């Protein structure tokens, strides 16, 4: 507009038409007065989140307080910087006039679209003087990290470990010792305690008999999270479901006093050594929040997993979409005598659909058949497989299969 005004004034002077100069005068005065009166705003902003930890699907209120410490009123537009997976309400910039010495409070609804560590802030502020002559862009406030924990499913059943560790737990061990679960009745031998005597059997047989019981032991559980590849649609992906499955299983096993380890194997290898308790649950969930698909050509052999992460007799639960040849190879390599391995398949079928042509449909069917064949191959190796469908995994079927496989192995 200033250039236009300048042009009008020059044209008026050159052509001797004073009306052009008079026409331009209001705009010139407006710009001039606006510039003289404009002063740099002194704004301060604070960003505060009601909570910084929430469960996937929940939302949290973010409060932004902006204060004008300058000498003049300013028109401000402000918006929150945030990571892509965060939805804001209101999403776009918000405009308001802020008089000198006044402050204003704005509330944004923040909702992470998926689990993970998200950042919200700082506040982007664009300030204008009241006539809009000068514009100042700045960032105020701090970055707040918002941790959205994966939604956990209640599991009706867990994969029962074939072997247990000699720690107090909730799994009925195969060995006999002191416990609650009845195992057998046998004749009294020296060293048996009097409290073990089964008086009913003793009275019937006329000789001392004792009751044997199965002790309740804990087990070591290793959660292997496959992050080589994932199938993803607009809403979600197999990694999301895998993380939820891992979190749910970790919680359930830790509640049964098992030692749980986490190995995130994919383009990058991350792990947490086995440990008990609530602290370990927080560690695992925190580690899961950082899980992501890291593209890589690297092969991961069993040897690349630290030995202490796979203790003898541990139950290994491989949570995988069975999409990458490297993870399938690793799983089959893990199947060694004495290792208790089960595959929890996070099905990519929910996130894929055949293309429009008949050839696409045929290819899709072939791919499904190939997956069925792969599952059969794993079962032939004695590896139980269950499809994870948002908490409704057929773990009962896996346990039956594992019992049968165990009997066949012993036979």
């Amino acid at each position, binding site marked *: *507009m*200033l250039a*236009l005004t*300048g*042009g*009008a*004034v*020059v044209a008026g*002077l050159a052509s*001797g*038409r*004073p*009306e*052009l*100069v*008079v*026409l*331009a*005068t*209001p*705009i*010139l*005065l*407006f*710009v*001039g*007065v*606006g*510039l*003289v009166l*404009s002063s*740099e705003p002194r704004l301060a902003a604070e960003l505060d989140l009601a909570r910084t930890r929430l469960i996937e699907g929940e939302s949290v209120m973010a409060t932004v307080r902006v204060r004008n410490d300058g000498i003049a*009123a300013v*028109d401000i*537009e402000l*918006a929150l*910087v*945030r990571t*892509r997976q965060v939805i804001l309400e*209101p*999403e*776009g*910039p*918000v*405009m*308001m*006039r802020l008089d000198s010495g006044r402050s*204003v409070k704005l509330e944004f609804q923040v909702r992470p679209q998926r689990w993970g560590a998200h950042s919200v802030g700082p506040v*982007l502020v*664009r300030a204008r003087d*009241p*006539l*809009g*002559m*000068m514009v*100042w*862009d*700045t*960032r105020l406030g701090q970055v707040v990290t918002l941790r959205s924990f994966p939604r956990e499913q209640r599991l009706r059943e867990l994969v029962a470990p074939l072997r247990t560790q000699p720690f107090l737990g909730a799994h009925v061990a195969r060995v006999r010792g002191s416990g609650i679960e009845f195992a057998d009745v046998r004749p009294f031998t020296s060293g048996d305690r009097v409290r073990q005597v089964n008086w009913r059997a003793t009275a019937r047989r006329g000789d001392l008999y004792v009751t044997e019981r199965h002790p309740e032991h804990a087990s070591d559980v290793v959660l292997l999270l496959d992050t080589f590849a994932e199938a993803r649609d607009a809403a979600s992906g197999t990694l999301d479901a895998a993380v939820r499955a891992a979190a749910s299983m970790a919680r359930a096993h830790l509640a049964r006093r098992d030692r749980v380890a986490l190995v995130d194997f994919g383009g990058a290898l991350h792990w947490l050594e086995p440990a008990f308790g609530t602290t370990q649950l927080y560690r695992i969930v925190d580690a899961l929040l950082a899980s992501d698909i890291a593209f890589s050509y690297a092969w991961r052999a069993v040897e690349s997993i630290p030995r202490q992460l796979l203790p003898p007799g541990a139950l290994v639960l491989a949570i995988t979409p069975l999409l990458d040849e490297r993870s399938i190879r690793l799983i089959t390599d893990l199947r060694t005598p004495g290792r208790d391995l089960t595959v929890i398949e996070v099905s990519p079928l929910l996130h894929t659909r055949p293309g429009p042509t008949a050839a696409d449909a045929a290819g899709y069917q072939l791919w499904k058949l190939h997956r069925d064949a792969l599952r059969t191959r794993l079962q032939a190796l004695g590896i139980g497989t269950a499809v994870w469908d948002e908490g409704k995994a057929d773990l009962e079927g896996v346990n039956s299969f594992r019992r049968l496989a165990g009997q066949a192995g012993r036979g």
Partner: protein
Amino acid sequence: MLDLALGVLVATDAGSASGLAWYGVAFSVALLAVSLGLGSSTAFQTSVGVLGLVLLLRRDDRLVLAPIYGAALLVLSELARTSHEVRRLELIARGSIRARLLTTLLFTGLGACGAGVVAIAVARAPMRSVAVSALGTAAVATAFAAIVLIARRSQSRDSGADPSAEGQTSEDETWLDST
């Protein structure tokens, strides 16, 4: 509406040039509509420029009308600018737009008064001469120089205030770059 009203004010008194005036008004209105539709600031500035030139086609009372006409053009351009800025906002606090428009109208009125003073000075001035033209040129040049100086000083003050803001861009900030 304001655009059209200003155009009608000129075209009805343009005499033999009324056809040209109507074309100019139609072009200006079309440009303004395009500007509002596409969000182009160039289009509305051109529209205001065309409407300003159309004033020259009026036969009588051009100098008398010029202050009001110029003030109306200023209001028009401010309204168009505000509408551009507002369209990408999601939420506007109550009273913000009204406060802004009132400020604009207040300063536009001040500008119209100033233009009226200039118009009176022109009407009462002696016949055109080299000295008077030189004086006018010097006054205009001084006014422009003052405006440019103030603008530069404000800009340098602004850039010195927050050097850390430079080079910090991300896709989340695209709303800042859209104007």
